[in-house]
Protein backbone atom coordinates (compact mmCIF):
# COMPACT_ATOMS: atom_id res chain seq x y z
CA UNK A 1 0.00 0.00 0.00
CA UNK A 2 1.11 3.55 -0.85
CA UNK A 3 -0.62 6.89 -0.40
CA UNK A 4 -0.89 9.85 -2.76
CA UNK A 5 -1.83 13.31 -1.54
CA UNK A 6 -3.37 15.89 -3.86
CA UNK A 7 -1.80 18.93 -2.25
CA UNK A 8 -3.93 21.40 -4.23
CA UNK A 9 -7.10 19.87 -2.83
CA UNK A 10 -5.82 19.71 0.76
CA UNK A 11 -7.08 22.59 2.89
CA UNK A 12 -5.51 21.54 6.14
CA UNK A 13 -8.38 19.87 7.95
CA UNK A 14 -5.73 17.61 9.57
CA UNK A 15 -8.19 14.75 9.79
CA UNK A 16 -5.68 12.40 8.12
CA UNK A 17 -3.08 13.22 10.78
CA UNK A 18 -5.65 12.55 13.50
CA UNK A 19 -6.57 9.18 11.96
CA UNK A 20 -3.07 8.05 10.99
CA UNK A 21 -0.42 10.18 12.74
CA UNK A 22 2.41 7.85 11.71
CA UNK A 23 1.65 8.39 8.05
CA UNK A 24 0.36 11.97 7.84
CA UNK A 25 1.67 15.11 9.53
CA UNK A 26 1.50 18.84 9.06
CA UNK A 27 3.62 21.16 6.96
CA UNK A 28 4.46 24.72 8.01
CA UNK A 29 1.00 26.02 7.06
CA UNK A 30 -0.91 23.11 8.57
CA UNK A 31 -1.62 21.28 5.33
CA UNK A 32 -1.06 17.56 5.16
CA UNK A 33 2.41 16.13 4.73
CA UNK A 34 2.95 12.47 3.84
CA UNK A 35 5.49 11.05 6.28
CA UNK A 36 5.83 7.65 4.65
CA UNK A 37 6.21 8.10 0.92
CA UNK A 38 7.12 4.48 0.20
CA UNK A 39 5.37 1.25 1.11
CA UNK A 40 3.11 1.61 4.15
CA UNK A 41 3.69 -1.12 6.80
CA UNK A 42 0.76 -3.54 7.05
CA UNK A 43 -0.02 -2.65 10.66
CA UNK A 44 -0.87 0.91 9.57
CA UNK A 45 -3.23 0.00 6.72
CA UNK A 46 -6.41 0.29 8.77
CA UNK A 47 -5.44 3.75 9.97
CA UNK A 48 -4.55 4.86 6.46
CA UNK A 49 -7.95 3.71 5.20
CA UNK A 50 -9.54 5.73 7.96
CA UNK A 51 -7.46 8.77 6.99
CA UNK A 52 -8.71 8.42 3.42
CA UNK A 53 -12.33 8.08 4.53
CA UNK A 54 -12.11 11.10 6.85
CA UNK A 55 -10.66 13.65 4.43
CA UNK A 56 -13.40 16.19 3.67
CA UNK A 57 -11.59 17.28 0.51
CA UNK A 58 -11.06 13.72 -0.80
CA UNK A 59 -7.41 14.62 -1.31
CA UNK A 60 -6.00 11.19 -0.41
CA UNK A 61 -5.70 8.27 -2.80
CA UNK A 62 -4.63 4.81 -1.69
CA UNK A 63 -2.74 2.65 -4.17
CA UNK A 64 -2.73 -1.07 -3.49
Amino acid at each position, binding site marked *: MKVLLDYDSCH*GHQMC*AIAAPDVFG*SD*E*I*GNAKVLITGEIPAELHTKVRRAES*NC*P*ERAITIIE
Partner: protein
Amino acid sequence: MTDTQKPVTDILTDYDIFAPDFIKNPYPGYTEIRESQCPIAHTERYEGSWLPTRYEDVVAIAQEYETFTSRQILVMPPAAGRSEGPYAAVGAPPITSDPPDHHWHRRLILPVFAPQAVAQYEPGTRDLCNALIDEFIDKGVADAASDYAQHIPVRVISKMLGVPLTMEDEFTEWVRGALENITDAERRIKSFRSIVEYFIGEVQSRAANPREDDFITQLMNTEVEGKKVPIEYVLGVCNLMLVAGIDTTWSAIGSCMWHMAQHPEHRKQLRENPDLWPTAIEELLRVYAPVTMARIVDHDIEFQGCPMKAGDRVLMAFPAANRDPRQFENPDEVILDRQNNRHVAFGSGIHRCAGSNLARLELRVALQTWLERIPEFELIDPTSVTWAGGQVHGPRKCMVKF
Protein backbone atom coordinates in the same frame (compact mmCIF):
# COMPACT_ATOMS: atom_id res chain seq x y z
CA MET B 1 -37.48 43.06 12.94
CA THR B 2 -40.93 41.59 12.45
CA ASP B 3 -39.56 38.62 10.50
CA THR B 4 -38.93 36.85 13.79
CA GLN B 5 -42.48 37.28 15.01
CA LYS B 6 -44.47 35.71 12.18
CA PRO B 7 -45.19 32.01 12.67
CA VAL B 8 -43.59 29.74 10.07
CA THR B 9 -46.23 28.47 7.62
CA ASP B 10 -44.09 26.10 5.57
CA ILE B 11 -40.48 25.37 6.49
CA LEU B 12 -39.55 24.70 2.84
CA THR B 13 -40.55 28.17 1.69
CA ASP B 14 -40.62 30.19 4.90
CA TYR B 15 -37.97 28.86 7.32
CA ASP B 16 -36.87 31.13 10.14
CA ILE B 17 -33.43 30.32 11.56
CA PHE B 18 -34.13 32.77 14.40
CA ALA B 19 -37.45 31.28 15.51
CA PRO B 20 -37.10 30.35 19.19
CA ASP B 21 -37.64 26.61 18.59
CA PHE B 22 -35.15 26.59 15.74
CA ILE B 23 -32.52 28.41 17.81
CA LYS B 24 -32.92 25.88 20.60
CA ASN B 25 -32.92 22.78 18.41
CA PRO B 26 -32.48 23.25 14.66
CA TYR B 27 -32.00 19.57 13.85
CA PRO B 28 -35.64 18.46 13.36
CA GLY B 29 -36.09 21.38 10.95
CA TYR B 30 -32.95 20.49 9.02
CA THR B 31 -34.13 16.88 8.79
CA GLU B 32 -37.58 17.90 7.57
CA ILE B 33 -36.03 20.01 4.80
CA ARG B 34 -33.32 17.50 3.94
CA GLU B 35 -35.73 14.58 3.56
CA SER B 36 -38.33 16.56 1.59
CA GLN B 37 -38.65 16.93 -2.19
CA CYS B 38 -36.97 20.29 -1.74
CA PRO B 39 -33.72 19.80 0.23
CA ILE B 40 -32.64 23.36 -0.56
CA ALA B 41 -35.26 25.48 1.18
CA HIS B 42 -35.92 29.16 0.61
CA THR B 43 -37.24 31.96 2.77
CA GLU B 44 -38.17 35.57 2.17
CA ARG B 45 -37.28 36.45 5.76
CA TYR B 46 -34.27 38.66 6.50
CA GLU B 47 -34.10 39.82 2.87
CA GLY B 48 -34.24 36.23 1.62
CA SER B 49 -31.90 33.23 1.63
CA TRP B 50 -31.46 29.64 0.45
CA LEU B 51 -30.78 26.79 2.86
CA PRO B 52 -29.08 23.67 1.48
CA THR B 53 -29.24 20.81 3.98
CA ARG B 54 -27.67 17.81 2.21
CA TYR B 55 -23.99 17.14 2.74
CA GLU B 56 -23.33 16.86 -0.98
CA ASP B 57 -24.95 20.22 -1.78
CA VAL B 58 -23.31 22.12 1.09
CA VAL B 59 -19.88 20.79 0.12
CA ALA B 60 -20.44 21.51 -3.59
CA ILE B 61 -21.36 25.11 -2.82
CA ALA B 62 -18.37 25.52 -0.49
CA GLN B 63 -16.09 24.30 -3.28
CA GLU B 64 -17.55 26.65 -5.93
CA TYR B 65 -16.08 29.84 -4.54
CA GLU B 66 -16.35 31.73 -7.83
CA THR B 67 -20.12 31.27 -8.00
CA PHE B 68 -20.74 31.36 -4.26
CA THR B 69 -18.62 34.27 -3.07
CA SER B 70 -17.63 35.45 0.41
CA ARG B 71 -18.54 39.10 -0.15
CA GLN B 72 -20.76 38.66 2.88
CA ILE B 73 -20.50 35.73 5.22
CA LEU B 74 -23.00 36.39 7.97
CA VAL B 75 -26.42 34.75 7.88
CA MET B 76 -28.06 38.18 8.27
CA PRO B 77 -27.76 41.04 5.79
CA PRO B 78 -25.39 43.76 7.02
CA ALA B 79 -26.93 46.40 9.25
CA ALA B 80 -27.59 49.74 7.57
CA GLY B 81 -24.52 51.94 8.06
CA ARG B 82 -22.02 49.05 8.10
CA SER B 83 -20.50 50.31 4.85
CA GLU B 84 -20.02 53.84 6.18
CA GLY B 85 -17.32 55.39 8.34
CA PRO B 86 -13.52 55.46 8.06
CA TYR B 87 -13.00 51.75 8.71
CA ALA B 88 -15.97 50.35 6.81
CA ALA B 89 -13.51 48.51 4.54
CA VAL B 90 -12.28 46.39 7.44
CA GLY B 91 -13.56 42.84 7.00
CA ALA B 92 -12.43 39.61 8.59
CA PRO B 93 -9.80 38.28 6.17
CA PRO B 94 -9.41 35.66 4.88
CA ILE B 95 -12.95 34.54 5.68
CA THR B 96 -14.42 37.60 3.93
CA SER B 97 -11.88 37.54 1.05
CA ASP B 98 -12.29 36.12 -2.41
CA PRO B 99 -9.44 35.10 -4.71
CA PRO B 100 -6.98 36.44 -5.69
CA ASP B 101 -6.45 38.37 -2.41
CA HIS B 102 -7.79 35.43 -0.43
CA HIS B 103 -4.61 33.49 -1.15
CA TRP B 104 -2.18 35.83 0.63
CA HIS B 105 -4.77 36.85 3.23
CA ARG B 106 -4.94 33.22 4.26
CA ARG B 107 -1.37 32.16 3.65
CA LEU B 108 -0.06 34.76 6.12
CA ILE B 109 -2.05 33.52 9.08
CA LEU B 110 -1.93 29.75 8.48
CA PRO B 111 1.50 29.09 10.07
CA VAL B 112 0.25 30.56 13.36
CA PHE B 113 -2.57 28.00 13.45
CA ALA B 114 -0.72 24.87 12.31
CA PRO B 115 -0.97 22.00 14.84
CA GLN B 116 2.69 22.30 15.83
CA ALA B 117 2.25 26.06 16.39
CA VAL B 118 -0.91 25.89 18.52
CA ALA B 119 0.53 23.13 20.73
CA GLN B 120 2.30 25.82 22.79
CA TYR B 121 -1.12 27.00 24.05
CA GLU B 122 -2.04 23.67 25.63
CA PRO B 123 -0.44 24.14 29.11
CA GLY B 124 -1.84 27.67 29.42
CA THR B 125 -5.31 26.50 28.34
CA ARG B 126 -5.20 23.69 30.92
CA ASP B 127 -4.17 26.18 33.63
CA LEU B 128 -6.99 28.55 32.79
CA CYS B 129 -9.56 25.71 32.74
CA ASN B 130 -8.33 24.62 36.17
CA ALA B 131 -8.53 28.18 37.48
CA LEU B 132 -12.14 28.46 36.29
CA ILE B 133 -13.05 25.16 37.94
CA ASP B 134 -11.38 26.28 41.19
CA GLU B 135 -13.92 29.11 41.32
CA PHE B 136 -16.96 26.84 41.57
CA ILE B 137 -15.90 23.28 42.40
CA ASP B 138 -16.71 23.67 46.11
CA LYS B 139 -20.19 25.01 45.40
CA GLY B 140 -21.46 21.80 43.79
CA VAL B 141 -23.23 23.78 41.06
CA ALA B 142 -22.02 25.79 38.08
CA ASP B 143 -23.17 27.18 34.80
CA ALA B 144 -21.18 25.05 32.36
CA ALA B 145 -21.78 27.67 29.66
CA SER B 146 -21.32 31.03 31.38
CA ASP B 147 -18.99 30.03 34.25
CA TYR B 148 -16.80 27.77 32.15
CA ALA B 149 -17.05 27.49 28.34
CA GLN B 150 -17.56 31.20 27.76
CA HIS B 151 -14.26 32.17 29.39
CA ILE B 152 -11.93 29.75 27.67
CA PRO B 153 -11.54 30.85 24.01
CA VAL B 154 -11.61 34.57 24.81
CA ARG B 155 -8.68 34.17 27.19
CA VAL B 156 -6.70 31.98 24.80
CA ILE B 157 -7.26 34.45 21.96
CA SER B 158 -6.34 37.45 24.15
CA LYS B 159 -3.10 35.76 25.11
CA MET B 160 -2.37 34.92 21.52
CA LEU B 161 -3.02 38.50 20.37
CA GLY B 162 -0.95 39.93 23.20
CA VAL B 163 -3.74 42.03 24.69
CA PRO B 164 -4.69 42.21 28.39
CA LEU B 165 -7.01 39.53 29.80
CA THR B 166 -8.94 42.36 31.44
CA MET B 167 -10.58 42.96 28.03
CA GLU B 168 -12.50 39.70 28.36
CA ASP B 169 -15.89 41.17 29.20
CA GLU B 170 -15.70 43.79 26.45
CA PHE B 171 -14.60 41.26 23.83
CA THR B 172 -17.42 38.93 24.81
CA GLU B 173 -19.95 41.74 24.70
CA TRP B 174 -18.76 42.94 21.28
CA VAL B 175 -18.71 39.46 19.75
CA ARG B 176 -22.20 38.70 21.02
CA GLY B 177 -23.33 42.12 19.79
CA ALA B 178 -21.97 41.29 16.33
CA LEU B 179 -23.09 37.68 16.02
CA GLU B 180 -25.92 36.83 18.38
CA ASN B 181 -28.09 39.86 18.27
CA ILE B 182 -30.57 39.95 15.42
CA THR B 183 -32.92 42.72 16.39
CA ASP B 184 -30.65 45.63 17.24
CA ALA B 185 -28.82 46.82 14.11
CA GLU B 186 -27.35 49.76 15.97
CA ARG B 187 -25.72 47.43 18.48
CA ARG B 188 -24.25 45.35 15.66
CA ILE B 189 -22.64 48.43 14.12
CA LYS B 190 -21.46 49.63 17.52
CA SER B 191 -19.94 46.25 18.32
CA PHE B 192 -18.04 46.22 15.05
CA ARG B 193 -16.77 49.77 15.53
CA SER B 194 -15.73 49.02 19.11
CA ILE B 195 -13.64 46.09 17.88
CA VAL B 196 -11.98 48.15 15.16
CA GLU B 197 -11.35 51.14 17.42
CA TYR B 198 -9.87 48.94 20.10
CA PHE B 199 -7.41 47.40 17.67
CA ILE B 200 -6.52 50.77 16.15
CA GLY B 201 -5.37 51.68 19.67
CA GLU B 202 -3.37 48.45 19.95
CA VAL B 203 -1.72 49.05 16.57
CA GLN B 204 -0.86 52.65 17.48
CA SER B 205 0.62 51.64 20.81
CA ARG B 206 2.83 49.05 19.09
CA ALA B 207 3.86 51.59 16.44
CA ALA B 208 4.97 53.95 19.23
CA ASN B 209 6.52 51.25 21.43
CA PRO B 210 7.47 48.23 19.35
CA ARG B 211 7.04 44.86 21.02
CA GLU B 212 9.10 41.88 20.15
CA ASP B 213 6.79 39.05 19.71
CA ASP B 214 3.07 39.17 19.69
CA PHE B 215 0.62 38.37 16.97
CA ILE B 216 -0.43 41.95 16.25
CA THR B 217 3.22 43.05 15.97
CA GLN B 218 3.95 40.15 13.62
CA LEU B 219 0.98 41.12 11.47
CA MET B 220 2.04 44.77 11.35
CA ASN B 221 5.53 43.81 10.25
CA THR B 222 4.41 41.39 7.56
CA GLU B 223 5.35 42.30 4.02
CA VAL B 224 3.75 41.19 0.79
CA GLU B 225 5.72 41.85 -2.39
CA GLY B 226 8.08 44.18 -0.51
CA LYS B 227 5.35 46.32 1.02
CA LYS B 228 3.94 46.27 4.54
CA VAL B 229 0.41 44.87 4.58
CA PRO B 230 -2.33 47.54 4.74
CA ILE B 231 -3.72 48.56 8.12
CA GLU B 232 -7.17 47.31 7.04
CA TYR B 233 -5.70 43.83 6.78
CA VAL B 234 -4.15 43.98 10.26
CA LEU B 235 -7.40 45.25 11.78
CA GLY B 236 -9.42 42.74 9.77
CA VAL B 237 -7.42 39.78 11.03
CA CYS B 238 -7.75 41.04 14.62
CA ASN B 239 -11.50 41.32 14.02
CA LEU B 240 -11.50 37.76 12.67
CA MET B 241 -9.67 36.47 15.73
CA LEU B 242 -12.46 37.78 17.92
CA VAL B 243 -15.56 37.09 15.84
CA ALA B 244 -14.41 33.71 14.54
CA GLY B 245 -12.36 32.55 17.50
CA ILE B 246 -14.50 33.23 20.53
CA ASP B 247 -18.23 32.63 20.12
CA THR B 248 -17.68 29.58 17.91
CA THR B 249 -15.36 27.56 20.14
CA TRP B 250 -17.17 28.58 23.30
CA SER B 251 -20.40 27.30 21.71
CA ALA B 252 -18.78 23.98 20.79
CA ILE B 253 -17.38 23.55 24.31
CA GLY B 254 -20.78 24.44 25.79
CA SER B 255 -22.69 21.97 23.59
CA CYS B 256 -20.24 19.22 24.48
CA MET B 257 -20.61 19.99 28.20
CA TRP B 258 -24.39 19.84 27.76
CA HIS B 259 -23.98 16.47 26.03
CA MET B 260 -21.61 15.06 28.65
CA ALA B 261 -23.92 16.17 31.48
CA GLN B 262 -26.60 13.91 29.99
CA HIS B 263 -24.43 10.97 28.95
CA PRO B 264 -22.68 9.22 31.85
CA GLU B 265 -21.89 6.33 29.50
CA HIS B 266 -19.76 8.61 27.31
CA ARG B 267 -17.96 10.06 30.33
CA LYS B 268 -17.20 6.50 31.44
CA GLN B 269 -16.05 5.48 27.97
CA LEU B 270 -13.57 8.37 27.81
CA ARG B 271 -12.34 7.76 31.35
CA GLU B 272 -11.71 4.07 30.67
CA ASN B 273 -10.27 4.52 27.23
CA PRO B 274 -8.38 7.81 26.77
CA ASP B 275 -7.25 6.64 23.32
CA LEU B 276 -10.76 7.53 22.18
CA TRP B 277 -10.17 11.27 22.52
CA PRO B 278 -9.09 11.98 18.93
CA THR B 279 -12.15 10.32 17.33
CA ALA B 280 -14.41 11.54 20.14
CA ILE B 281 -13.51 15.17 19.50
CA GLU B 282 -14.20 14.80 15.77
CA GLU B 283 -17.51 13.09 16.50
CA LEU B 284 -18.59 15.79 18.93
CA LEU B 285 -17.60 18.42 16.35
CA ARG B 286 -19.71 16.62 13.76
CA VAL B 287 -22.82 16.38 15.91
CA TYR B 288 -22.52 19.79 17.56
CA ALA B 289 -20.96 21.81 14.71
CA PRO B 290 -21.69 25.33 15.90
CA VAL B 291 -21.24 27.46 12.79
CA THR B 292 -23.40 28.33 9.79
CA MET B 293 -21.74 30.66 7.28
CA ALA B 294 -23.21 32.43 4.28
CA ARG B 295 -22.22 32.95 0.67
CA ILE B 296 -23.43 35.48 -1.89
CA VAL B 297 -24.34 34.22 -5.37
CA ASP B 298 -22.17 35.92 -8.00
CA HIS B 299 -24.37 35.41 -11.08
CA ASP B 300 -27.73 33.92 -11.89
CA ILE B 301 -27.48 30.15 -11.78
CA GLU B 302 -29.73 27.13 -11.48
CA PHE B 303 -28.33 24.97 -8.71
CA GLN B 304 -30.04 21.61 -8.12
CA GLY B 305 -33.18 23.03 -9.71
CA CYS B 306 -33.16 26.19 -7.60
CA PRO B 307 -33.20 29.46 -9.56
CA MET B 308 -30.54 31.40 -7.64
CA LYS B 309 -30.05 35.04 -8.60
CA ALA B 310 -26.94 37.22 -8.40
CA GLY B 311 -26.81 38.69 -4.91
CA ASP B 312 -28.84 35.93 -3.26
CA ARG B 313 -27.66 34.72 0.14
CA VAL B 314 -26.99 31.00 0.63
CA LEU B 315 -26.69 29.64 4.16
CA MET B 316 -24.00 27.02 4.51
CA ALA B 317 -25.65 24.84 7.11
CA PHE B 318 -22.66 22.74 8.10
CA PRO B 319 -24.60 21.43 11.13
CA ALA B 320 -27.27 20.11 8.72
CA ALA B 321 -24.70 18.56 6.37
CA ASN B 322 -23.05 16.82 9.31
CA ARG B 323 -26.26 14.94 10.09
CA ASP B 324 -27.08 13.81 6.57
CA PRO B 325 -27.82 10.07 6.67
CA ARG B 326 -26.53 9.80 3.06
CA GLN B 327 -23.08 10.57 4.44
CA PHE B 328 -23.18 9.35 8.07
CA GLU B 329 -24.72 6.19 9.51
CA ASN B 330 -27.05 6.94 12.43
CA PRO B 331 -26.26 10.63 12.07
CA ASP B 332 -28.06 11.86 15.19
CA GLU B 333 -26.20 9.41 17.41
CA VAL B 334 -22.91 10.28 19.11
CA ILE B 335 -20.53 7.37 18.46
CA LEU B 336 -17.25 8.27 20.12
CA ASP B 337 -15.21 5.82 18.08
CA ARG B 338 -16.88 6.57 14.73
CA GLN B 339 -14.42 5.51 12.04
CA ASN B 340 -15.78 7.18 8.91
CA ASN B 341 -16.28 10.83 9.71
CA ARG B 342 -15.75 13.20 6.82
CA HIS B 343 -17.45 15.97 8.80
CA VAL B 344 -17.45 19.60 7.74
CA ALA B 345 -17.81 21.35 11.11
CA PHE B 346 -14.94 23.59 9.99
CA GLY B 347 -16.32 24.02 6.49
CA SER B 348 -14.80 22.79 3.27
CA GLY B 349 -12.72 24.23 0.44
CA ILE B 350 -10.65 27.39 0.46
CA HIS B 351 -12.45 28.95 3.44
CA ARG B 352 -12.02 25.97 5.74
CA CYS B 353 -11.67 27.35 9.28
CA ALA B 354 -8.09 28.56 9.73
CA GLY B 355 -8.26 28.20 13.51
CA SER B 356 -9.51 24.61 13.58
CA ASN B 357 -6.43 23.17 15.27
CA LEU B 358 -6.65 25.72 18.06
CA ALA B 359 -10.40 25.09 18.42
CA ARG B 360 -9.82 21.32 18.68
CA LEU B 361 -7.14 21.86 21.29
CA GLU B 362 -9.36 24.14 23.38
CA LEU B 363 -12.32 21.77 23.12
CA ARG B 364 -10.27 18.72 24.12
CA VAL B 365 -8.47 20.44 27.00
CA ALA B 366 -11.71 22.00 28.29
CA LEU B 367 -13.49 18.62 28.32
CA GLN B 368 -10.53 16.64 29.68
CA THR B 369 -9.87 19.09 32.50
CA TRP B 370 -13.52 19.20 33.54
CA LEU B 371 -13.92 15.40 33.40
CA GLU B 372 -10.76 14.89 35.46
CA ARG B 373 -11.89 17.30 38.16
CA ILE B 374 -15.65 16.69 38.00
CA PRO B 375 -16.18 13.18 36.64
CA GLU B 376 -19.87 13.00 37.60
CA PHE B 377 -22.33 15.81 36.93
CA GLU B 378 -25.80 16.36 35.50
CA LEU B 379 -28.13 19.07 34.27
CA ILE B 380 -30.12 20.67 37.06
CA ASP B 381 -33.12 21.29 34.83
CA PRO B 382 -32.95 20.46 31.10
CA THR B 383 -35.77 22.92 30.35
CA SER B 384 -33.83 25.87 31.79
CA VAL B 385 -30.93 25.58 29.33
CA THR B 386 -30.91 28.56 26.96
CA TRP B 387 -29.35 28.67 23.51
CA ALA B 388 -27.96 31.01 20.91
CA GLY B 389 -28.45 30.07 17.27
CA GLY B 390 -28.60 31.19 13.68
CA GLN B 391 -24.96 32.03 13.01
CA VAL B 392 -23.48 30.14 15.94
CA HIS B 393 -25.33 27.45 17.90
CA GLY B 394 -24.56 26.67 21.51
CA PRO B 395 -25.88 26.94 25.07
CA ARG B 396 -25.72 30.25 26.88
CA LYS B 397 -27.03 29.04 30.24
CA CYS B 398 -26.50 25.43 31.26
CA MET B 399 -26.69 24.84 35.01
CA VAL B 400 -25.18 21.58 36.25
CA LYS B 401 -24.78 20.00 39.69
CA PHE B 402 -22.10 17.69 40.97
